[in-house]
């Protein structure tokens, strides 16, 4: 896999049929629901390429954490914005590793910027 600073727009897409299959089998991760985030991870964690990582079973909704998605990642030390870079099926075909690129901005700073500029996305 590429390093985080190389081709930041690149993602490894997953077959929509696979996403659908995993979404049907998925139960929302309780802590993600309680935190009101898309997926739970540990912001300390780094894989061999320098990305953050967790597993799909820790997501609230599979469809919100597909590669290319922007997500709010929750942890015991707060929430972080991240981009989903890839799903890695090497270890499990049913609970892939979710590879995350943590973004160096806080969720609130982004919400403030969107609100300040009257963005329709705010």
């Amino acid at each position: 896999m590429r390093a985080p600073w190389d081709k930041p727009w690149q993602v490894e897409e997953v077959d929509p049929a696979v996403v659908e299959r995993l979404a049907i089998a998925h139960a929302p991760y309780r802590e993600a629901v309680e935190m009101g985030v898309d997926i739970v991870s540990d912001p300390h964690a780094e894989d061999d390429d320098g990305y953050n990582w967790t597993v799909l079973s820790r997501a609230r909704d599979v469809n919100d954490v597909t590669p290319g998605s922007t997500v709010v990642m929750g942890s015991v030390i707060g929430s972080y914005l991240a981009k989903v870079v890839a799903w890695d099926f090497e270890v499990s075909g049913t609970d892939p590793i979710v590879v995350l690129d943590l973004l160096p901005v806080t969720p609130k700073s982004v919400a403030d910027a969107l609100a300040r500029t009257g963005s329709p996305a705010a």
Partner: protein
Amino acid sequence: MTVPPAPRGRKTRLVRPGDVPDDLMLVIRAVPANRSAAVEEMADRAQLSASVYVVEQSGKWCLLFGVSVFAHRLGRDATDVLRRFPRAPMFVEAPVGTVRAAGFEVVPTGTDADHFDVQLIAGVVEPDAPPSEAEVRAAATRLLDTTGEWRPNPSYAGEAGERFEED
């Protein structure tokens, strides 16, 4: 020594070559104010790591009950590391030698030169019965006990993360 092939169903963790000096300072954790929450998270992540990664140790592929930590090099303070954890009110650190003296191996993992895993439970290979959650939690507690006092995170941005520290 010939190392057997890595077990299927696990990823082989990249271990960087070279020694890890005893005086290298590690930010063990950016932590919440609640110690038990910190222990629970470390234990949980170590178990998740062991479900994914193996490392070669003494000729065997051992499950990596890894806790990710970051080094801050001589002459640089912890702020460079802590900038990435603006929502953590506190942090704890310890030199590699102190962590080793408590019986933990510090493994230089991944391509990030400042990233290491502390192996919470050493020597577990795949056919072995895994350690209990209580054992992993006890090891996480022992690791936290190696650290000095809990110190305020200079990059802390408050509960809502109003700011993100810059130089």
